[in-house]
């Protein structure tokens, strides 16, 4: 694919970038080298804070506000981007180097139509005229398999779905036929089923135009499908770099191995509960919605003590709405919620304090779910005082016990503010707050999806241990089937507000499936670099994807 005789497209040597925090500069990228040839796709992976996006942006000679490139060289096709004038850099951006952002919904300007935003780069760089650019846009929209390519450009960003926006953004990046595109986590915010469409569209178009790309992601299985080579970053430094297949088959460094190993975490399904046992919580025929719009239709499932029920589905399938019905935040229009076989009042304001205590929640964004002005002592202590009436020394002792239980050193953490914690530690505090009420059912709403894989795994192991020790029932809302495989005993698959399939985990991952479950299962990326090709050709030939249930493999 690459020949040594041809000069590389992008050469970065000893790149150092500093970020400003609390009135002083700290190095966030410490001497990274990177070489990219024409038509080549390099995967940049690492956890959050590894400096992936910062390096990706530096390849465009760009540093975000509050960051500065402090050392090293960046040479794009013989042009020294650090020495080049602003106008030279501006002339390259959008024309020869383009960028695809993580959240297309936030990165499209809400005030302008998609087509106007598409035409902007070609027009300001003088690559083509308006009419030609519009014509070209329709062509690219069609290649990106966007619905209604002739008309979609006339819509505003809010009128187009997330997956479609992401494709429109890739089309926009292609507008001037750049030599290099930086993809910054382009599918991270998407559902698995949408992710496949975007991935295949991106790969086709990069192939067709022979564009080189830097593909930034924290998802190893995704990078395995997209990249020719993979570079692993950790805290601003390179861990290792290798050809994709080599890297997947034989990672050299311990850190890389640990990244690979995360995916293998899996717990066996617990034996089913006795038939006579009353479930801790049961939903029966619940229909609920907002205003006149029903979001849930006749939803029912049970959660037994000591067991985990994973509720899976794409965004908008009604998973979180079901949790709102159980907690009483959204009274249903039909059906009921039973606690230990007794119907609960639909509205939480009419529930007794003991009933409220039994059901607690852990939220996706620990960042926003913890009051930034409260210390850990107050955050964890408050539910104990409220539900259990603990005061003074007894309260203090209980808070300390709980912190020890979630594996945080009490002396060190009890007086901290949430801002003084890492993402994983915040989520542990979220867990401690839920447990403080001594509940029987804990609803976990996407609790690991905002976390890096290693940290997420720690949280999953902790939840699992707590479940065994405290005999808790979990309702685990997630869209990530790897998480389901790791922790579930039973699975409830939801689509458009209905339960399409439910049963024990072992049955869920074994065919035959409901067609929708099968689509979900087969859409989960695998580490095998040929997975996407195989899947697409299978789907194209109508075999139906995963009759051999790839997701069931370890």
């Amino acid at each position, binding site marked *: 694919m690459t020949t040594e005789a041809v000069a590389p497209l992008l050469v970065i040597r000893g790149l150092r970038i500093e970020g400003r925090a609390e009135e002083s500069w700290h190095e966030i990228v410490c001497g990274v080298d990177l070489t990219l040839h024409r038509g080549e796709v390099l995967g940049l992976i690492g956890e959050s804070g590894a400096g992936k996006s910062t390096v990706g942006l530096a390849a465009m000679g760009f540093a975000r506000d509050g960051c500065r490139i402090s050392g090293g060289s960046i040479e794009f096709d013989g042009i020294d981007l650090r020495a080049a004038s602003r106008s030279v850099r*501006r002339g390259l951006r*959008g024309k020869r180097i*383009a960028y695809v952002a993580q959240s297309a919904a936030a990165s*499209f300007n809400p*005030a302008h139509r998609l087509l106007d935003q598409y035409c902007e*780069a070609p027009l300001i760089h003088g690559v083509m005229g308006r009419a030609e650019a519009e014509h070209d846009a329709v062509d690219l929209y069609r290649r990106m398999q966007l619905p209604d390519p002739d008309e979609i450009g006339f819509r505003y960003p*809010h*009128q187009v779905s997330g997956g479609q926006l992401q494709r429109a953004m890739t089309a926009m990046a292609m507008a001037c036929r750049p030599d290099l595109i930086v993809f910054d986590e382009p599918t991270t915010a998407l559902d698995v089923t949408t992710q496949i469409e975007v991935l295949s569209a991106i790969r086709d178009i990069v192939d067709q135009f022979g564009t080189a790309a830097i593909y930034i992601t924290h998802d190893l299985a995704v990078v395995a499908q997209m990249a020719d080579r993979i570079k692993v970053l950790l805290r601003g430094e390179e861990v290792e770099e290798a050809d994709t297949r080599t890297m997947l088959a034989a990672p050299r460094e311990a850190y890389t191995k640990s990244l690979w190993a995360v995916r293998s975490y899996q717990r066996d399904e617990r034996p089913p509960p006795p038939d006579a046992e009353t479930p801790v919580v049961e939903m029966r025929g619940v229909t609920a919605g907002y205003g006149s719009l029903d979001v849930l239709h006749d939803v029912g499932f049970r959660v037994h003590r000591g067991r985990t029920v994973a509720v899976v589905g794409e965004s908008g399938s009604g998973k979180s709405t079901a949790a709102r019905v159980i907690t009483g935040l959204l009274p249903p229009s039909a059906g009921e919620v039973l606690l230990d076989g007794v119907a609960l009042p639909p509205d939480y304001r009419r529930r007794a304090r003991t009933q409220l205590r039994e059901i607690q929640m852990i939220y996706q964004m620990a960042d926003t779910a913890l009051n930034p002005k409260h210390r850990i002592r107050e955050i964890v202590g408050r539910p104990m005082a409220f539900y259990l009436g603990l005061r003074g020394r007894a309260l203090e002792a209980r808070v300390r016990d709980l912190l020890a239980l979630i594996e945080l050193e009490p002396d060190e953490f009890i007086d901290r503010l949430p801002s003084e914690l890492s993402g994983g530690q915040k989520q542990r505090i979220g867990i401690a707050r839920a447990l403080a009420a001594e509940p029987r059912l804990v609803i976990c709403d996407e609790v690991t999806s905002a976390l890096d894989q290693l940290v997420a795994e720690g949280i999953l192991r902790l939840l699992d241990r707590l479940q065994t020790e405290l005999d808790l029932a979990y309702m685990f809302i997630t869209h990530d089937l790897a998480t389901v495989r790791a922790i579930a005993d039973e699975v409830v698959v939801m689509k458009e507000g209905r339960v399409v399939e439910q049963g024990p985990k072992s049955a869920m991952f074994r065919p035959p499936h409901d067609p929708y479950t099968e689509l979900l299962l087969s859409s989960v990326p695998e580490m095998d670099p040929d997975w996407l090709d195989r899947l697409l050709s299978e789907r194209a030939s109508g075999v139906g994807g995963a009759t051999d249930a790839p997701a069931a493999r370890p």
Partner: protein
Amino acid sequence: MLQMIAQRLALGVLTLFLISVLIFGAIELLPGDIAEEILGQSATPETVEAFRRELGLDRPAHLRYLDWLGGVAQGDLGHSLANRRPIADLIAGRLANTLFLALYAAVIAVPLSLALGILAALYRNSLYDRAVNVFTLSSISFPEFFVAYILIFFLAQSGLFPSIARVTPGADLADKLHRTFLPALTLTLVVTAHMMRMTRAAIINLLASPYIEMARLKGVGPARIVLRHALPNALAPIINVIALNLAYLITGVVVVEVVFVYPGLGQLMVDSVSKRDVTVVQAAALIFACAYVLLNLVADVLSTLSNPRLVHRR
């Protein structure tokens, strides 16, 4: 949209009604009445009483209010208590003067503050940005009459512009603009800071958005980023501040009118309050309230129109 406008107009009418009650009540609370004001201290109680009867002031307050309200509902503002002239005649000329001056000041101030604000956002934290901030903030910090006298000192002493803005009916526009330049400039200085700073802040607030970063990564230049990518999304707050300032130009200019001896509505209202000429005060207050209600409605409609998410539904 039409539903919203209708709703807001209905609420506006309710607001006007409440304001008329408040004004009427407030004037009733003032010591003395028009009969005492006109007849002076030497009048005998009998004359005052007779005069009151003639004006209908002996009737209970709520009946007088209802009478007046009935008239207004039929489009009749009533007659001045002081000189018996129809209020409509009395106010028409004054209102035209006030609107003329407000429009004059707005035509200078709105484009000026938008331009200054946009430039300040573009060259934020530069020397220019600081200079504009210092200048506009100082001009808003001084009392209006002080700004007016400073302008008179520098621009009227030399004979460049007249210090008395006496407008005669039938004067041609150029002459009128020349005569009212100083009051218009004073008002401009008073309202510019607010609008300019909101424009600057609303734009800068958006410059950290992902879509602005995207525009920069597409190679868009700084001027185009501010004008085309940030400004359209910053319009709603800017429009609302402009509306508030325009309303101020109509209703809050009495000091400037006094300094430049300009026959506007504000002066009439103040005179009428001191004369306890309730009916004129009521009419002027209603007009001011109308200005607020209508300008705010226009601002809401415009900021809705500036947001594609509200105009183009999914």
